[in-house]
């Protein structure tokens, strides 16, 4: 922080500041940061044009409010300012509204809180579950449910994923010609016989490399896997 200040918590103190950029109607100016600030960084937005006797009739408003802290305060030297911080990236509007000589006075400034772009929504997946039909009796019940539950398939679809046609498949599936089905070959081919079954094989819906994992023990774990795995185009 650049300037020392006294902790006079004047929540209703009338502070009108001009930031860059700022809009003022009647002499209230907000002077704030000229560029984006870091999430969690404290900045001072100085208010000019609000006299001490106008403090009680001036309001400070801001939006969004989530994870945002606004503290109107005053320096020992008398300058008034608004202490601002927010932990969430985005644009924040700070508004100062006052009255003087029966005239409404208003000023606002925009503060940009920078930071990394929010993570893009995880891409939906094409899903195939490969199992061994002669070892079904060894499957824990929760895994068996993922193979057989119609409700689970609907939840998968609701989450944006696609259970490939024929996608609950025995390791040794063959088509009418006695071959590995063309549609399922990319998924079956990544499963090594040395690995444990059942397995879940996924590929981005828009196409890409097929990834395979041991089938998680529960549906919840599988959904987490689908949400957290990064697609590889």
């Amino acid at each position, binding site marked *: 922080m650049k300037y020392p200040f006294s902790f006079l918590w004047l929540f209703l103190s009338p502070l009108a500041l001009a930031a860059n950029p700022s809009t003022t109607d009647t002499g209230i100016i907000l002077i704030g940061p000229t560029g984006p600030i870091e999430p969690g960084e404290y900045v001072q937005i100085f208010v000019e044009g609000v006299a001490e006797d106008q403090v009680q009739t001036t309001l400070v408003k801001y939006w969004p409010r989530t994870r945002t802290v606004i503290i109107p305060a005053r320096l020992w030297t008398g300058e008034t300012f608004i202490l601002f911080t927010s932990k969430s990236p985005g644009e924040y509007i700070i508004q100062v509204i006052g009255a003087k000589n029966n005239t409404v006075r208003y000023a606002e400034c925009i503060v940009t809180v920078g930071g990394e772009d929010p993570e893009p929504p995880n891409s939906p997946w094409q899903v195939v579950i490969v199992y061994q039909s002669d070892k*079904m009796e060894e499957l824990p019940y929760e895994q068996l449910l993922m193979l*057989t*539950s119609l409700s689970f398939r609907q939840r998968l679809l609701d989450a944006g994923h696609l259970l490939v046609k024929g996608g*609950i498949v025995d390791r040794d599936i063959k088509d009418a010609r006695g071959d590995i089905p063309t549609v399922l070959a990319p998924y079956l081919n990544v499963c090594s016989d040395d690995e444990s079954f059942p397995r879940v094989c996924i590929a981005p819906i828009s196409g890409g490399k097929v990834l395979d994992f041991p089938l998680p023990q529960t549906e919840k774990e599988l959904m987490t896997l689908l949400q957290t795995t990064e697609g590889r185009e």
Partner: protein
Amino acid sequence: MLVIGDYNWSTIPRERGILPRFIRYGSQCARRQGLRPIHDFPDLLIPEDEWKGRIQQATEHKVMPVFYFRDAGVLAKSQGRTNWCWAYGITSALESVQLVENQPHVRLAPATLGWTVGWHNVANWCSDAIAAVAERGVASSVYAKDGITNPKLFEKGWEEDARNYKLSEWFDVETHRTEKETVKQCVSLLLTGLPLYVAYNWWGHALAIIGIEWDEAEKYNLRWIGWNSHGDGEIVLTGSRGVPDEAYAPRSSTFSIAKDY
């Protein structure tokens, strides 16, 4: 919906669709045909005191084939005046396995299994039907309507199409112990999401069992949900009438190279 129980079974017209099983359970002959005895998989069997909870879970999670049939809007089949229930029952079992495997629903033509009996309108062994489906498969209904036995009425190309729809591996239920033991094996298989291809000697009829419901007013607390081939689709069997004299559960099917791929 037709409900058949111990109180009314004598009023149900007898069929002439099935011949008594002759292949011995667990024998080499049965195994060569892909019939794996369920007792090879002892961990598959669910104790009776767990049935209620497991049936409730299976219903809540829509595990049994009956839910797939309802969701897919599967239409009932009608064998008409034929004695080919042995073909209609196994065809329905095949259709349900394909749905569980997330393959698209394709309505199949049981009549295309008629080569097994020389196209005669006669009964058959379930084991022969199983062998036929493994060897040549069942064509889709595009090639043959329900209720016919004359292959000259089939569309060309049915034999090629039938190769897409085969079943090769089965769990075999041992039905020569006690009735209760048979029930236990059947319940265990149904709760794994598999349909049953069953035969009832008292009825002379074969069909598919696609689900069970818990009902404490019934024997074994069970209502058996069948998929029948008299144009009716879902039926319910209760009491000893629901316990099959033969039962087989298909384990996996051929991957269909259907045109929509």
